[in-house]
């Protein structure tokens, strides 16, 4: 019943969900960044189990190598003394408590769980070998325009981020 693939999925899903939950309950930003690293690691493993190896590798490269370092820089550049007992924003919850955000998150999860559980999903696998060649060919033929557009978009966004973060004073 529980073969190695199922066991691997279970471990990776528990790693992902557990570290996401830890990010939710912790108050320490650095602990949350570490938990986000574990969460991204688990997600990359889940991508491998969904037969998307290119996605897993690029996810690891981009999130662990790029976004997480960026977040760590952001944390270090905006360090403020943590005030205990106040970790709730009033963006949605006027009561300044944790009840409404948590119950809304829980109800979203229960609703999605129920709705998705009633779907009649197809479990067939189209292709179980590596998708590197197919992805590369698709990037340069079928998706060449979005590919170029994404490159220009990335350039614009990074130049804009550098300009915004500049000290204008």
């Amino acid at each position, binding site marked *: 019943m529980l073969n190695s693939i199922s066991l691997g999925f279970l471990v990776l899903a528990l790693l992902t*969900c557990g570290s996401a939950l830890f990010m939710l309950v912790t108050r320490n930003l650095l602990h949350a960044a570490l938990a986000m690293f574990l969460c*991204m690691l688990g997600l990359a493993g889940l991508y491998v189990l969904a*037969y998307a190896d290119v996605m897993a590798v690029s996810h690891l490269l981009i999130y662990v190598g790029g976004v997480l370092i960026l977040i760590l820089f952001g944390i270090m550049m905006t360090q403020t003394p943590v005030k205990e007992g106040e970790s709730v924003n009033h*963006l949605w*919850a006027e009561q300044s408590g944790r009840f409404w955000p948590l119950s809304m998150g829980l109800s979203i999860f229960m609703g999605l769980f129920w709705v998705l559980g009633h779907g009649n999903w197809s479990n067939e696998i189209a292709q179980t070998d590596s998708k590197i060649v197919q992805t590369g060919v698709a990037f340069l033929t079928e998706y060449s325009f979005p590919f170029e557009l994404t490159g220009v978009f990335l350039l614009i*966004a990074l130049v804009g981020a550098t300009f915004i973060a500049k000290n204008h004073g």
Partner: protein
Amino acid sequence: MDNIPLIFFLWVGAFLFATGFAMMVMKRNTIFVLMGIELMLNAANLNLVAFSRSDDQNQGMMMGLFVLVVGVCEMAIALAVIIQVYRQFKGIDIDQFSSRN
């Protein structure tokens, strides 16, 4: 049972989305809110990849790769804005942002 049923991926994605949403509306620190948004984005991406499993042209995975790049752009811009906001308001708590000084 050699392959994982699709519904398990969808459930993990739903859990990540709900956790990210709760983080987004509960936390006070802007970087926490940003991490919550990132979790929601990754939940959507996991769904794309999981559905692309039964597609012989991999359209979901290609879409997911583009979503990854757009997420990086969002993160870079948002952290730059956070750094500017920190210079302006001397803090990054959401409650203290107000232009009525």
